[in-house]
């Protein structure tokens, strides 16, 4: 166990350093979601006047989406970094060491988790400064941060899986629009019961992203909604477990080939 932790520590330090040495990634993943939050909350503020809309302020309603978008950037950052390791041969050199595959994945994801925590704190600070009020109180903020980190781990693991399967940073980047679509085809901008178009409501209902957003959103606009939180944490954990397992298998296959 101690050996494993040491291995994770070395790789985590490298992952964190590499993540923070890329200003373009940092700036984009920190500020683009805030930019979209500003644009959407300003442009759609009138939507809060729709009868049955669950919040008086669209900013309160939209804040959760910012965390999801941060997680999406975690996917591409994690995937691109790991793909670079594959392309440069770093992974092959690691394969010659007694490193455990679990340590490799955990270490890779550490940088993403560090980024996710800082992103989340920034989004929260900006939201609170702009007047967002948490119905669930200060404890709700802690719970929201935990869910955001869980989601970032899950999405980061998806990025790692894509990188291990394709071995190409370009391929990971090319899948970004596809993941972006899953965000937009969710309840990010409108509660599911207020989505008028039948097929869109159906897609949003079967899209797990809707429940991840709704879990985080419930802490802001409702308070303590056990069902929304259970679905958010449950699906977040499921995504993380499945993605980590898939990444682990993909890593074994990749190492066996090299």
């Amino acid at each position: 166990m101690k050996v494993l932790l040491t291995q994770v520590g070395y790789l985590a330090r490298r992952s964190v350093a590499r993540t923070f040495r890329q200003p373009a990634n940092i700036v984009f993943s920190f500020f683009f979601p805030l930019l979209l939050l500003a644009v959407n909350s300003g442009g759609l503020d009138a939507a809060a006047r729709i009868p049955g809309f669950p919040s008086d302020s669209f900013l309160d309603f939209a804040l959760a989406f910012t965390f999801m978008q941060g997680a999406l950037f975690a996917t591409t950052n994690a995937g691109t970094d790991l793909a670079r390791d594959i392309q440069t041969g770093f992974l092959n050199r690691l394969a010659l060491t007694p490193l455990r595959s679990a340590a490799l994945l955990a270490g890779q994801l550490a940088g993403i988790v560090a980024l996710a925590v800082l992103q989340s704190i920034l989004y929260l600070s900006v939201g609170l400064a702009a007047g967002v009020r948490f119905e669930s109180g200060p404890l709700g903020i802690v719970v929201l941060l935990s869910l955001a980190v869980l989601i970032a781990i899950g999405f980061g693991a998806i990025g790692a899986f894509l990188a291990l399967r394709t071995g190409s940073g370009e391929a990971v980047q090319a899948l970004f629009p596809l993941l972006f679509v899953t965000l937009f085809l969710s309840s990010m901008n409108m509660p599911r019961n207020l989505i008028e178009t039948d097929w869109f409501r159906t897609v949003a209902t079967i899209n797990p992203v809707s429940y991840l957003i709704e879990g985080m959103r419930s802490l802001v606009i409702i308070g303590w909604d056990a069902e929304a939180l259970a679905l958010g944490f449950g699906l977040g954990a499921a995504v993380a477990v499945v993605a980590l397992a898939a990444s682990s298998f993909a890593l074994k296959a990749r190492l066996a080939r090299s």
Partner: protein
Amino acid sequence: MKAFRSVALAVAWRSLHNAFTNPAILLPSLLFPLFFFTAFAGGLSRVGEVPGFDFPSGYTAFQFVFVFLQSAAFGGVFTGFAIARDFESGFTRRLFLAATRRSGILAGYAISALVRWIFTASVVTAVALVAGMQVGGSGVDLFGLVVLGLLVNMVAVLWAAGVAMRMRTMQAGPLMQVPVFLTLFLAPVYVPLALLDGWIHAVASVNPATFFLEAGRGLISGEPTETAVAFGLALAALALFVVWAQRSLRRAEASGA
């Protein structure tokens, strides 16, 4: 003139051939507008019921105009990416040596952007009509909307070409894209200007894209509004960016590409 035309047509043909034979280049410029149209017109249709929202042709047509003009602008930006790629691959260096009239190179890329956008706009329009979009405007109104789209496309490609020719690297992509994205999204995208409040209302009120959107929405609903202002602004922007792109071309020539 003959030299200019032959250079322009050759560059346009090559650029179009690259775009239409490579799905990785063609699909994003086609799928993004379709995706935005689906997400906005499909997911946000209830916004059309906000008190004070009285657009006569309905929310689908309201969003269609945004996506139509957005596809025009991004069609131009995507052509800017192609120009940057040509610089990185060294193709432009050879092109500069071979072209007898180098200003024809700009014209060629502009023609390519235009054709690509006409293709995208046709698909987006067909999808919108299938989705039940109501069109209240006459043939003349719709022609006006198309011309407005063409002008927006030209302005965007000249902006992006200027950036590509100054930076000469694909890393300039965000510099081409982000200002266009911000200009478009800081306009009344989801609701009319009158329903915006606060800072976004203040920004949208002076944003040229607001006039393009309001004019386009007026034309599609058959109740033209701000049309003269929008065309005036588009033509002024076109003149400005022709100068910008030509100066950038000179700078690229001077650098030896």
